[in-house]
């Protein structure tokens, strides 16, 4: 879950690059990017006991992201379709989509 303090606004495109990805929704099939919302980095685990964390630890959960160059596991939602969230491994350089898997699963090739 990405809980970035943007609240619910998660669609943030880099200026100057028109993104027209084709994304294979695991429930509906391949659709244009227009139908999806971006949700940022995947596999960020919400602390079970936030009260036990220091401010720095909580801020790390809240604000800090990997800013990966290369394969990046991220969340997408088929908002204009089935409204399901799922995970995508996307190369942030080439924008090639390397894997798509359901929420709760680990990235392909990684053990739980």
């Amino acid at each position: 879950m990405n809980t970035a303090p943007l609240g619910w606004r998660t669609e943030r495109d880099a200026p100057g690059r028109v993104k027209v990805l084709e994304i294979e929704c695991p429930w509906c099939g391949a659709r244009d990017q227009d139908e999806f919302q971006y949700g940022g980095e995947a596999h960020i685990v919400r602390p079970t006991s936030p009260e036990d964390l220091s401010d720095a630890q909580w801020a790390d959960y809240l604000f800090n992201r990997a800013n990966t160059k290369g394969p990046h596991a991220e969340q997408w939602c088929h908002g204009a379709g089935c409204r399901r969230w799922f995970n995508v491994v996307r190369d942030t350089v080439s924008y090639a989509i390397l894997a798509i898997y359901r929420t709760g699963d680990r990235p392909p090739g990684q053990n739980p």
Partner: protein
Amino acid sequence: MSGARRLTTGGLIDRSHSISFHFNGKRYSGHPGDTLASALLAQGVRLFGRSFKYHRPRGVIGAGSEEPNALVQVGEGAHSTPNLRATQVELYQGLTARTVNGWPSLAYDLGSVNNWFGRLLPAGFYYKTFMWPRSAWMRYEHYIRKAAGLGHAPSGPDPDHYDKRHCHCDVLVVGSGPAGLMAALGAARSGARVILADEQARLGGSLLHASVQIGGKTAVDWVGEVLTELHTYPEVTLLKRSTVAGYYDHNFLTINERRTHHQGPGQSDPRISRERLWRVRARQVILATGAIERPLVFSGNDTPGVMLASAVSTYVRRYAVAPGQCGAVFTNNDSGYQAALDMAFAGMEVVAVVDIRANPDPASVSAAKALGIPVYLGHGVPSVEKNRQGLSGIELARLTDDGKSIQSHKGVHRCQVLAVSGGWSPAVHLYSQSGGRARFDEKRACFVPGESVQAERSAGSSKGTFDLAGCLREGANAGVAAAAASGWPGSSIDVPVTSAPPCAAIQACWEVPTDALGGTGAKKFLDFQNDTTVADVQLAAREGYRSIEHVKRYTALGFGTDQGKLGNINGLAVLARSLDQTLGDTGTTTFRPNYTPVSFGAVAGRSLGAQLFDPVRKTAIHSWHVRRGAEFEDVGQWKRPWFYPQNGESMSDAVNRECLATRQGVGVLDASTLGKIDIQGPDAAEFLNRLYTNNWSKLEPGRCRYGLMLGEDGMVMDDGVTTCLAPGHYLMTTTTGGAAAVMSWMERWLQTEWPDLKVYLTSVTDHWSVMSIAGPHARQVLHEAGCNLDLGGAVFPFMCSKAGTVAGIPARVSRISFSGELAFEISVDANLGLALWEEVMGAGQKFNITPYGTEAMHVLRAEKGYVIVGQDTDGSVTPLDLGMSWIVSKSKDFIGRRSLSRSDTAKENRKQLVGLHTQDPMQVLPEGAQLVNAPGVEKPVPMIGHVTSSYFSANLGHSIALALVKGGASRMGGTIYAQLMDGHVVPASIVDAVFFDPDNERQRRN
């Protein structure tokens, strides 16, 4: 008679028909198949425009989309289109065109004085000269724009229509030259869905002016045969006049098809759109985009009459035009020789072939010599002579063996046409747009595609393969391979035999040497459209520019509407040499969409007008509001009644009347737009506990509760009242604007973080029509309307909700209030919303029931100090900042809780919500006004806060304002100053945010 320079036979024009047109006010004629450029050349026209900066006379230099000089404004009035290339404009009866540069006229151009002061206008001249004083820029700009400007905008709204088409294909082939045609054929035979797109009016690319045999036929006949076969495949789409303009991610490409340009305004079937933008998702892409010939860089290389060698061949062979009486060729590769042969074919006297190479391919040389054309090997043309009509002669010079300096001058040769070839630059534009990095090939002296990033492959001269046999072969292989890769294997195709010779080596020449004798001062142009010269790029390098991107911006190299198709590579080479780098080190500037300009009409398609795709949402009661004369306000996508003016009332009079009527009698509000989410499931209460700051475990069926929702950062995100309808069944309301986002937020938590919770969400915003009856007489009105529920305070207390009927309509009646008055919200099936509203209005007549809009609602809630999320909060406000610690549970976790104790959110002196009383009770502060502690102190004045809501309260008889003020909660009774935009300073006292009925007696009254 279509012109003195028109050949009597040959070419792909229809001599049986004549087309008359006007250019710069003068009448001309041409034939079907002509472009504006070919028709004008046939009539002996040499001057096509003036250059952008120096206003030098310019002729046509190319024959296609790369043309930088011959820019024209075509058509009149609203139909007028600026900056079209005369080399691409097809003739139609009655066409009118004029040059875009040249003021007051093309022949006598005032701006050409710039040419004589050219030494005073170096690179960066405008940056350096017109910057100071800064305030004067506006004045300078007016004249600079007038002197410079390219075309003019049409005089009225576009009368044509445009559309879009979305499609998928297996193989998209870009370009229909030899490689593209073979690729399309190879792919089509497999059964794949193929799109072949070409920017020209006729498919065939360079074969349309080639004088070679393919498979024993003329090139044009062979093209016809291939197209005939392609037409037989139902899955093949052939698109001419269609520029593949953009290559985006995941093989998404846009094609700009010009459907009626060639017919002229009013001449085409009105059902056919003027242009169509194809949005194509291709499994495989074949880039057979060809190559663009490079000019050679020498003094006066912009003189009218200097043309690309391939353009000369095109005018002769395709358009049957001899571009002059007498011509010469200047080349560093074999391509130039073909122009010499073609000029001779057109009956022109060819006075010289000047070849920089000392030892070129003997076959080419002997072919020219066989026609009696003198060939000068190891020679160059350092400069030209000109007269008022343009080129009149070329200087010939013997070059040293390394080609880098002049050995001896050989005098002047008279000619009106100089066909130049500096080699070929593969059109790697789309490849680069796809994310690939072109690399420099020293041997072929050009940038060629590197590795593929997307599912694309280049073939033919776009890949740096310049011989015809190689283009045909690569095209065939690419077509078969792309089809197989897209799931259509097993296709095969034979490569036809061609008579074209193989391609001999080029000798790179990026700048023709000059010496004192040849005139070192004359300009050598790199970018013709922006008048960027060799000296400009060298100056940029001397002044410390290193990156080609910076040099581009400093010198305007490649900044024109042609995006440097001709000049960029020569410019890169000059920079590379100035910096003592290789071209590969220097690299290219970024190739961006679109390849050639695309009209706004095509981009917009049918998405025109104010509403576009943002739907307008209206409540079931909307028509009543309209009849009542309401002014509307946009809230999210909704149209909400803002206020209901009566008898010409002003807005403030109407709002005051509505506020007073509600507090003194009874008012009614259409509250249907609030977001409504139906929440069901055994874990619904637990879910609400995690979502909202307060506790929901003990909310019983039939009871309502106000909730505040935070982001994980602890900031207020939304609020609203949620009702428990039954165990495990809740109806949540959200703010009008936040409904969709809150729904998404809740879905996201349930799906990604808490999939174990059994909760189901349904958006029911549109299902329920809601009216709120507020005021001391609310209960009587509801009685009068025939409510079957006992509304007595003892059995129907505040924050209670019951199902019943009103006026016989099944309804849910809830006693909740956003005005601070005794109030009931009635929700019914939206189909019955208007019926209920009218029933209630009828029943309320005797109580003078008054409909009120969002403005009165805002005033009434502000009197009570109720915040509006998004108006009094801005994403940086916690519940504690709002003085709402009472709603923050200490006994459970919820989203954002941990953030409330972060050092920053917990610190004192945060901005806190307060009320403001202006000292002048009638003065209403502007919302957004900045608040300061003391006016007139030294700048910058520290900002202490700002006004978030501000109104005149008719009930209180004075203005009220809500504000966020640093440490506001501890400054009650203090004074603060609003600093207004007009310089006025308004003192105000800080007071509690609740202005009216602080003990909530009215909304709880029995």
